[in-house]
């Protein structure tokens, strides 16, 4: 017999419709994407602003090497940062340099320490070269910081090339680095880039926990609803406690899933319509989304696990990490851990169908079990007034109802 009896379905329908029709649902469903898009747009505006105010920064180079300064000025001017060398601060202390920035017409000081070029005879000395100091009156945008760092690097390369007697080579070409794309090759012939999925599975885990916290609260409110409105006795005289619990878990769970689906659609649409900031950031970090094939089967499994796991935890709210190898395989089957571990395994490497099935079946069984236990506790606890129950007492309830 299906656990979703007509009574359970009636409870699910009530819990779901009551919440989906509420003002809270409307506000939070619309509000959260608006908030996120707002933050995104704001961050975008700020980034654009800081990228366009290159000309407003005037940079003075304090050159303690005696020869790198000129090259740095040349490179930074090429990137339209207003740069010139300062005189007379080369041998001043760091404190003196700091103080003189405030009196100078410059916004920024770039301090090139004397050891920066290193010893040509000992390039692998092991110790890191001293850091280049960037002193600033105001905040420096990340784009400006990056431009300056790249300019200094090019100047360093040119300087070292000059030392070695090489001229006429574009340092930008020398500095170009390789990118590593890690690909899993599977029996089915599909190849997928691992990094993307590691990022996604981490994001999923984050979303999972956020959902648990938010909708767990909703679950708790739902559980006490009968008690606060005195409906409880009619309910417990009409349905089995586990039916009430299961109805609530599925009903409230479905509210969360509905909301997350709406958000996914909104965010998906937003991304499709040109909010590509996220994708380009990934691309910059060496991750190319367009190169990755979308494994729809796995996506479906991931969503399934998300929903089942979410329902299980919702059930646990109603009542009241692992390593690699064999241990991880075992734990990814255990209901309390599988919602998090199995999706990670699925994303990283192929998982035998038997294990996936076993994990799903165990999860469903556990959801029913948790609902049953919560129901036993609920049915006694809901009639208690005043006194708090201790653990032995609760265990007695579960055993005797």
């Amino acid at each position, binding site marked *: 017999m299906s656990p979703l009896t007509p009574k359970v379905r009636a409870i699910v329908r009530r819990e779901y419709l009551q919440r989906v029709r509420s003002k809270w649902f409307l506000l939070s469903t619309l509000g959260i994407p608006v908030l996120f898009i707002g933050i995104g747009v704001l961050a975008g505006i700020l980034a654009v602003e800081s990228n366009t105010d290159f000309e407003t920064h005037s940079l003075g180079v304090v050159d303690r090497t005696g020869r790198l300064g000129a090259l740095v000025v040349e490179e930074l001017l090429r990137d339209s940062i207003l740069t010139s060398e300062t005189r007379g601060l080369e041998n001043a202390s760091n404190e003196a340099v700091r103080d003189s920035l405030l009196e100078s017409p410059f916004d920024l000081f770039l301090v090139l320490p004397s050891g920066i070029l290193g010893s040509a005879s000992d390039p692998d000395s092991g110790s890191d070269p001293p850091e280049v100091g960037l002193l600033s009156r105001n905040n420096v945008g990340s784009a400006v910081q990056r431009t300056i760092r790249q300019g200094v690097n090019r100047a360093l390369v040119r300087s070292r090339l000059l030392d070695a007697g090489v001229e006429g080579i574009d340092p930008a070409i020398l500095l170009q680095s390789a990118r590593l794309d890690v690909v899993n090759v599977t029996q089915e012939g599909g190849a997928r880039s691992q990094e993307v999925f590691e990022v996604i599975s981490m994001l999923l885990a984050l979303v999972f926990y956020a959902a648990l916290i938010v909708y767990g609260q909703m679950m708790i409110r739902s559980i006490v609803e009968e008690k606060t*409105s005195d409906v409880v006795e009619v309910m417990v*005289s*009409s349905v089995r406690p586990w039916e009430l619990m299961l109805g609530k878990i599925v009903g409230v769970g479905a509210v969360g899933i509905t909301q997350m689906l709406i958000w996914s659609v909104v965010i998906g649409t937003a991304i499709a319509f040109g909010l590509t900031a996220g994708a380009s950031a990934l691309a910059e970090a060496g991750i190319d989304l367009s190169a990755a094939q979308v494994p729809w089967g796995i996506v479906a499994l991931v969503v399934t696990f998300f929903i089942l796991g979410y329902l299980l935890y919702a059930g646990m709210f109603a009542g009241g990490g692992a390593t690699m190898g064999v241990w991880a395989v075992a734990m990814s089957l255990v209901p309390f851990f599988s919602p998090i571990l199995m999706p990670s395994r699925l994303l990283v490497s192929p998982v035998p169908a038997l294990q996936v099935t076993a994990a799903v079946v165990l999860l469903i069984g556990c959801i029913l079990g948790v609902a049953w236990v919560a129901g036993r506790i609920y049915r006694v606890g809901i009639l208690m007034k005043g006194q708090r129950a201790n653990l032995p007492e609760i265990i007695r309830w579960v055993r005797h109802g």
Partner: protein
Amino acid sequence: MSSHSLIASREQRRSALKDVAIHLRGMTKRFGQNTAVRDLDLEVPRGCIYGLLGPNGAGKTTTIRIILDIIGPDSGEVMVLGSSDVESVRSRIGYLPEERGLYPKMSVIEQLVFFGELKGLERPKARRSAELGLERLGLEDRASDKIEALSKGMQQKVQFLCTILHAPDLLILDEPFSGLDPMNVDLLKQFVLERQRDGATVLFSTHLIEDAERLCERVCMIAGATKVLDGRVSDVKAATGRLEVAIGFEGDAGFLDSPDLVDRVSDQGRYVEVRLADGADPQEMLRRAVAAGARVSRFELVEPSLREIFIEKATEAGLSARDQDAGQARQEPVPA
């Protein structure tokens, strides 16, 4: 809700019913150190209106909760509608708990349909039944209002409807009249009598013994977790073997002052209630009144009230004054 299509014909129903609606044998329930109900035997025949009487805290609600399998007994036998598995007959029971409540944010019709479904009605059937009921109560144009928007009296009506929507064979009402306005007291009595005419059994608990006296064929009285007496109301009264006389008269009341005939007198304003002494003849009483020159407008033999029997029995059983609690019951307004 009397006899529309929801309910099978009365004959069918009667033949399906066996003799006993509720059967408790040696039922005991303890909460920690307290014994809520001790070794209770209870037999409610089908088709009757049965009163479970007793002061507050006597164990009435606990008994009802055990009958409904909301809590389990520590020991004893429970059978409801011929089954020891209450789960299997749950949809044939209608229950109005003492603490009444509805989902405040739900509309009236949704609420009714929801409870109908929980009692095993299919959705369309529940809806039809709810609409009929609302129409009868004159609430049809409030169907889509939220419960919290209704007056207290209307909420009470909706609550009754929730209880009887599925035409239950057994109606269990815990202190049904407390907190009701007078209009709704009458309405509820009407519902109760209708259900009984359709062959249903009604069990209700009350600490207001007068309510039970008016409605019930049979009663069970409990005090301090123990049964004091039970049986047909008429048998219970006959068993006391005591006589009371109500006398209305004008003139000198001196004839009442005769200890050989009169045990106790209580003045009711327009008449006096006289409890006769053991073995006294009521005819002698009437003769003396006339001889004393009183103009007698009323002379009536009355049965002792259940309240008096209850107090007497409870005292016999050696229960403390607090357990009897009858003084409190007397002060509460008695619904019309």
